[in-house]
């Protein structure tokens, strides 16, 4: 790992947006990094801030409403945190591209798929032979050449997802962010798309950041994973370690709830309480109100980050020396 270069580095990002006269802290302390050739997962439920983070990394946060209060985003060595829209145009697509959850709203309904892929190709390489390249891309994503002439609504869900991938790949990104890539798909199609993503990563020497609430998906596909809650990064590390030997009570609860683990009284293991209130600015652990192992200090101070040499770490007072 020390020999690899970083494509993406997010450090202590704090993003707010205005909603109905109040401030919502979508991200309060989000940190992660993705090195070359890695597949990194970002896990979290609604309100965790994972989608905000994805958009922040591409400069897609709505201008007048959101503010980056703190922290930084570094893409391929450049600090892009306060880039202007103009400057962002040079970042999007290459080196960072994104595919979203819902291909239908992403694809232009009145343009043929081939034209949309071509547009992407031309934008990043005006001298390219568009049709040839488009066909190459289609082949990469395992679509028939005839798809070039089709309109998005004529394709199935899985095909649209692949088309969206082809458009993103047309930019030759070094990092591809997949925001909930399979949520809108059937189980069978999900497996196919994930297999495709893995293959692409290998053939194209591209890094992947997979954002999902589905822990099973992340487990099978990611080298490392981050767990987010209420805009904070709570736990991070190699996927197996984080999911099987979780350090943070939230992660543990999340894994148990995902598996629908049955407790002795026939109930399912769950995390009590409700989704976090993002109007709050937390100067302590954001999970304290729902944690079964909460201590006094958890309500009062932000827990420090602790980790081991494998890169597995978490922010939790339980990990602090001498605490019970």
């Amino acid at each position, binding site marked *: 790992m020390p020999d690899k270069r970083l494509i993406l580095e997010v450090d202590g990002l704090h993003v707010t947006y205005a909603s109905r006269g109040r401030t919502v802290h979508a991200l309060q302390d989000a940190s992660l990094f993705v090195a070359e050739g890695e597949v990194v997962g970002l896990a979290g*439920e609604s309100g965790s801030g994972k989608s905000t983070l994805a958009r922040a990394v591409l400069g897609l946060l709505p201008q007048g409403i959101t503010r980056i209060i703190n922290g930084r985003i570094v893409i391929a060595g450049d600090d892009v945190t306060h880039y202007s829209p103009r400057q962002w145009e040079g970042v999007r697509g290459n080196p960072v591209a994104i595919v979203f959850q819902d291909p239908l709203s992403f694809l232009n309904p009145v343009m043929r798929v081939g034209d949309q892929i071509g547009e992407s190709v031309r934008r990043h390489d005006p001298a390219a032979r568009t049709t040839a390249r488009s066909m190459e891309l289609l082949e990469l994503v395992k679509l028939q050449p005839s798809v070039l002439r089709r309109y998005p609504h004529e394709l199935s869900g899985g095909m649209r997802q692949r088309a969206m991938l082809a458009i993103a790949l047309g930019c030759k990104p070094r990092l591809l962010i997949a925001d909930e890539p399979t949520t809108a798909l059937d189980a069978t199609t999900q497996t196919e798309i994930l297999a495709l993503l893995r293959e692409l990563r290998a053939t194209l020497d591209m890094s992947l950041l997979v954002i999902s609430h589905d822990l099973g998906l992340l487990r*099978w596909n990611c080298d490392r994973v981050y767990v987010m809650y209420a805009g904070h990064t709570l736990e991070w590390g190699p996927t197996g370690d984080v999911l099987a030997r979780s350090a943070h009570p939230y992660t543990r*609860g999340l894994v*148990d709830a*995902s*598996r629908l683990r049955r407790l002795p009284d026939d*109930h399912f293991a769950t995390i009590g309480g409700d989704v976090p209130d993002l109007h709050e600015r937390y100067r302590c652990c954001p999970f304290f109100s729902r944690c079964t192992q909460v201590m006094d200090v958890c309500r009062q101070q932000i827990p420090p980050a*602790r980790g081991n040499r494998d890169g597995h770490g978490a922010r939790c007072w339980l990990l602090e*020396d001498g605490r019970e």
Partner: protein
Amino acid sequence: MNPPVLELSRLSKTFRPRDAMPLRAVDDVSLHIERGECVALVGESGSGKSTLARLALRLIAPDSGTVRLQGRSLMQFSPQALRAARLMMQPIFQDPAASFNPRRTVRAILSQVLVQAGATSVGDEQLSALLARVELRPARDYLNRYPHELSGGQRQRLAIARAIAPQPAVIIADEPLSGADVSIRAQILNLLVDLQRDFGVAYLLITHDMLVARAFSHRVAVMYRGRIIEEGSTGEVLAAPRHPYTQNLIAAVQSLDPPFAHDVPAPVDNRSGNPLQRGYAGSGPGASHLTLDR
């Protein structure tokens, strides 16, 4: 022998839209649910499971086949008799946002149900009791709110409250957990477990998620393109699926199985059991501690 609470016999429904091919949504489907049982109907989008739910609820009329509720066939009921029988069979819909009249408060919504179920007047104490059943406490925090002011999990609980209020014999839940966060999902399932224990209500649980079916149902029926391709007790079907489509669905579930080692509570102390060992102060989630080329 008690008749099944709900019996669907050879239901078929073909849609004939004006400018498209006829679509055989449900093709000769039979399914029965015994008292206090939970039957999961598993299928992906397009399998016809939602249409089957609507046929069972008599929201649409089948082309052929019958629906029997507690032994009596609903097909020959007069509209008035049907309206009375309906209370025995309540729905929970997939989309909590569309499940409620946006212009009615929680109080109005639940009062309406209770009045339809025969109450002459509905007091706040009754409503509080109902809300307490679905763990929406304290009731006064909820009664005056509108559905859109509630969180997703709260709305789903409200939907359950509305469904059990008339004390139905069977609840037909169409994807009640899709779109819910994982922790909310487990909470909702716990609620359904409790209600079954307390009221003996039967469930027809429609889902695309085999994991939910495995966790919660006694029997499972797999639906594909309008037909039931496999059916049996949950344990049997999952252990020895016969149809390749079923096998596919099950494989997706296994992605979450052990080696997650959480059946044994993970030790928390800082000694040998701590997965992180002794603190290594610089290892934050960001990359600042790594010596890398930037």
